[in-house]
């Protein structure tokens, strides 16, 4: 079975990895590289818990063949988290009780990161549009939306690596 070596940038660092044919980015980062913040939920593209950023744009790592990301930049939740403390988005999720079981949280935070990097002062509707592909079965979304509004702080968000 012809596995291939690919290189790509993961959270700012160049990585080389051997991937099996059609192996997904999710399997690669979780099971080979042990970056397990990215969750494995439905594997159907339905739940959003596996969301990572590809060149700054949210994509579903469970549906993305690893070879497709060769020479590109992938950011996971580990890359959003600073060396010390938390990213303002993470802090805001904690402050606003936006996580309960926590399973959707990595995906929610990745989408929030992409949203605020594109649009520092989103409306409530824009926030809801952004997270529409991410399922939360605990919170009822309200605390998450409030956490994102607070993290944005009317355009004041300046996250790690910005």
């Amino acid at each position, binding site marked *: 079975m012809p596995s291939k070596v690919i290189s790509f940038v993961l959270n700012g660092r160049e990585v080389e990895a051997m991937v099996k044919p059609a192996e997904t980015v999710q399997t690669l980062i979780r099971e080979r590289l042990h970056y397990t913040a990215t969750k494995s939920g439905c594997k159907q593209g339905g739940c959003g818990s596996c969301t990572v950023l590809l060149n700054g744009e949210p994509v579903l790592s469970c*549906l993305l063949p690893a070879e497709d990301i060769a020479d590109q930049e992938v950011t996971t939740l580990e890359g959003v988290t600073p060396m010390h403390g938390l990213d303002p988005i993470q802090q805001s999720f904690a402050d606003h009780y936006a996580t309960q079981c926590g399973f959707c949280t990595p995906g929610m935070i990745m989408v929030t990161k992409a949203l605020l990097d594109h649009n520092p002062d989103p409306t409530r509707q824009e926030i809801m549009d952004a997270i529409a592909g991410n399922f939360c079965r605990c919170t009822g979304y309200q605390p998450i939306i409030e956490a994102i509004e607070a993290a944005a702080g009317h355009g004041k968000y300046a996250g790690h690596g910005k």
Partner: protein
Amino acid sequence: MIKHYFLPQSLDEALALLKEHGEDVAVSGGGTHMMMLINNGHIFPRALMGLRRAGLANIHANGSLRIGAMSTMTQIMQADTGDLLHTAAQNVGGWAVRNMATVGGNLMMPQPAGDFAVALLALGADVKLAGPDGERLVPLVDFYASLPHLKTGELITEIIVPHSTGKTAYLKHARREANAPSMVTVAVNLEMDGGTVTAARIALNGAGATPVRATAAERVVTGQALEPQTIAQAAKAAAEECSPFDDAVASAWYRRKMVDVFVKRALEAIV
């Protein structure tokens, strides 16, 4: 277990791989459907070909609109592709799905996931296919009417949307406001002269084996002013002529009722 993953760097390379491996190779566009089938064990292809690097993701928007088959929903929303296609693209999945799902892929989606294709039908789009015998250009409506949609070794390469001055409307009826499968989606494109409809395209998703044109409804409105009575008659015709199906989100019975309601609302939106 998939033995080979091919990532062709050009259309020619993709076509050559298809010719060489024939039926053994499954083709994936954005992966939002094909990778799900593989992950869930619904299919077990020996080989998979991804088209992300095949150079098919360009959009040219001068005169008629030419959309590379691998253009994503996000690209459609960012390019000058018109209100109807913008709205249709916005109605596909969530943000991450729209960053992956492609225009060409949407043509091949099982029902009721043709929420983009239905808008292309309303715009009278043509599909360009490339295969072992060269290229052919097929009206989307004929593409859907012929089975299989693609001949062996063929790929969708481009969608061509003629310049339209029509008035358009797009309504999707789903269980949730966003990121939900369609019960019924209606796309309407009417050429008007004053208050009179001179040409009509009314397309339905979730109301047949593929996205379909509601030709009886189109005949009702063509040559007429959009009076409430005409609209009601057209909506009734659409509900009668369509062949909806039962699935987890809605029954055929309910879908037919909703075709009536949403064709009516779409036509009213144009008045």
